[in-house]
């Protein structure tokens, strides 16, 4: 009996091994946080469970951040993906002890002057969330999928410069990751070393 058995069960066992590996994904769970936005309203990452979320580490004093705002690259990304139900959160983790710290009012005014359109701009004055994500630079970008997993972490694009002219011609990793992830595809470039100013811890 085992002879015939082996043929049948071989098929079954191949199927079960294949079945066991389909759910494999890279990336770890996005750390939870609750931070007040520029209006003082607490924002929780878990509020947006089931949606794609982009975290943008920012600092108005940083020339690399200004590169992407002066070229309107960042505002365009915020609008483009906000329109597709992606939650965009800009986070300023500059520690309140730093000379570059911005009060919620200052940060709100700057974002408004830039015509920025994130879902919210968050003031991480203790830098705790920056540390939890190991955010190193401004900008440093994270894309989180509907299940709360980080599917992209790193540089905003592949032009490591402070020149605004580079922003529009660069290969934008965040756009690529969102395009693939929203289409249900695997994100091909899931990390790239970030570049920019250091986060002012």
């Amino acid at each position, binding site marked *: *009996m*085992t*002879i*015939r*058995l*082996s*043929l*049948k*069960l*071989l098929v*079954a*066992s*191949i*199927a*079960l*091994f294949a*079945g*066991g*590996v*389909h*759910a*494999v*994904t*890279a*990336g*770890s*769970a996005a750390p939870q946080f609750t931070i007040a936005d520029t209006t003082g309203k607490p924002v929780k990452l878990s509020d947006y469970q089931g949606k794609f979320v982009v975290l943008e580490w920012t600092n108005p*004093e*940083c*020339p*690399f951040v200004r590169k992407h705002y002066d070229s309107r690259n960042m505002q365009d990304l915020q609008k483009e993906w906000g329109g597709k139900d992606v939650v965009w959160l800009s986070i300023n983790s500059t520690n309140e002890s*730093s*000379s*570059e710290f911005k009060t919620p009012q200052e940060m709100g005014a700057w974002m408004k002057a830039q015509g920025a359109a994130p879902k919210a701009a968050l003031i991480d004055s203790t830098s705790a969330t920056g*540390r*939890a994500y*190991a955010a*190193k*630079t401004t900008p440093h970008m994270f894309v989180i999928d509907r*299940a709360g*997993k980080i599917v992209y*972490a*790193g540089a905003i694009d592949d032009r*490591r*410069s*402070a*020149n605004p002219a580079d922003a529009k011609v660069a290969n934008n990793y965040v756009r690529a990751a969102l395009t693939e992830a929203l289409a249900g595809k695997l994100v091909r470039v*899931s*990390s*790239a*070393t*970030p*570049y*920019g*100013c*250091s*986060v*002012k*811890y």
Partner: protein
Amino acid sequence: MLRHSRLFRFSLAAALAFACAGMSAAAPVKTEHVEAELVAERTAFIPGQSLTVALRLRMAEGWHTYWRNPGDSGLPTTLAWTLPAGATAGPILWPAPYALPVEPLMNYGYEGEVLLLTEILAPADARPGETLALAAKAEWLVCRETCIPEEASLTLELPISSRSDPYPQWGRSIASTRALLPGPVRGWLGAARGEGAKVVLTLTAPADTELPGDLRFFPFDEGRIEPSGKQSLVRDANGTFVLTLPVAHQLAPEFKRVAGVITASRGFASGNLVVPSLALDVPLTGAVVAGPKPMTAATPVLNLDAPPAKAPGTDVSLALALVFAFVGGIVLNLMPCVFPVLSIKVLSLSRPGHGSWRMLRLEGVAYGAGVILSFVALAGLLLGLRAAGAELGWGFQLQSPAVITALALLFFVLALNMSGAFEFATFAPSSAAGWTVRNPYLNSALTGVLAVAIASPCTAPFMGAALGYALTQPAGLTLLVFAALGVGMALPFVLLTWFPGWRRILPRPGAWMERLKQFLAFPLYATVAWLAWVLGAQMDNDAVVRLLGTLVIVAFALWAWRVYRGGATRAFGVLAALGLAGAVVVAWPLFGDTAEDHAAAGTSIASARAAGGAIDPWRPYTPALLQELSRTKPVFVDFTAAWCVTCQVNKRLVLNDSRVREAFAQRGVELVRADWTRRDPDITKALAALGRQGVPVYVLYRPGKEPLLLPEILQKQIIYDALATL
């Protein structure tokens, strides 16, 4: 004396002349925080020869510019040359950088003044008497707390001449900068080995060398070594320096070579020379995984990346791993999941008229090939998935509820068959039966593949740690260890086919064979019971009920089918089909659920359990909890899984022992349990940092000391000894 002074006067005159006319460097460009200019080592270009030119950057007090790898943030300085036809410029030759910490980050760069060198080759047909005009656009990022990108267009004109003298003001600085550029240093040999989340860089010193003091490694490329991670240096018994480097959290792909600069606070001695730095570029052996998230530990009292010290008996060499794998393979034949099926296969060989000796032997070889290739393929599959970025270790096949369910069904059907509840023959079309007879070798090979498949739930429980070790080795060695496992597993069967003398001592085939077959069904039923328990630990009670319900329906469908084939009405055939469909419907959610979907639910169950049973001293593992606890207290971590039998034995016999628990309590040891029953990337990473890819693993984290790794097979005395080191 006279000659000397004449020479001196000539030089002075020449210098003055050049300063006034021949050579003209534009005045240094001054930005807010940097003074920049191009300067040359010598006074003139000689046709066809190269000359060292430097970009001199003088930073304001407290400001810095960056090295070729800027570290955690920043940008390297760049130079874009515009040169006359025929002249060429080499790349920037970077002096050794300094570590510039901006807590908690780390940058690599320069403060004060730096000379970034470039070799400029003059055209061979350049005419003496004319001048060569160099122009370069320099861009740099200068930072203190704030960062400012700056640039300057710089020029330098030098005469073309048949002779060239040291440039009075900068010649000497450029020459000494060039002499001190990091390069190979005679007598100092480097080698690099990947060990999970660490790269171990060994540096062999020349005999009787002076100590180089503190060493620091600066990688040429980003995404290799975590810039802010702690680098630890020890000198081993042979006098070799061992620098342990943390792998980058955002590890860039294709980490094949370790290339960079090592600086030494007291310099590297070589002959009569002492140089402050050396460059090396060596192949990386072993295997690395991305390092843990940096910056989370505020106090580095306990460095979780520190190499764990090993209690006696935990170290495995390759030869030992091969022997273990081979013996393990032989033992697999006796496992409850494999033994019954293989015994029946063996008995089928003993039937009279089974074919010639030669045929029998070839069947044995085919079976062996099937077993070995399956193990190698399984290891290859796992390596491939990990290369693709999946956080998996050995045992991954039991971390999915879908696999557990499928295995339970497989074993249940096998067991029913052996009990005699039904015959597979009633299913197989006669053409298939004929085919197996015509292809006995292929069939034997497929039996080998099947044997590996049914052995898979046993390899993880009993051999997780050994095979986990194999996975930390380079791919070739990993496959070798898995092949050795296959050889061991195939050996008994192959021997039986090659030396069939044993057939003579068996009783004549008869009713006893049928009875033995029926008896051997019970280990299979036991396996099903165990799998149901694992599923319960992975998910919940509902999942177990769902599985058991599926089994009942499957048994019913098989019975109905058998009745129908036995000549009953068509209604029984319909019942069988309905039963099968019902089984699919009932089991379906188990296949849809992934471990990830249940991760959240699982955590809540685990914490609820901890909250409910107030006396349970074990707290569920999270990296943050471990960091938090280990800062001040000793912590014992039990890396375990429900499907790991070794883990369960250790737990029952040692960890749950009242005297052991008392010993833990006396020493104030916090107990943490990392349950790997489900897939969990955090735990997989923690295991990798310890150089493991499977459970069980037992670690005692000791404040102020490196963690202590205990053997996989625990004894009470081992725990007491480990606690005594606190």
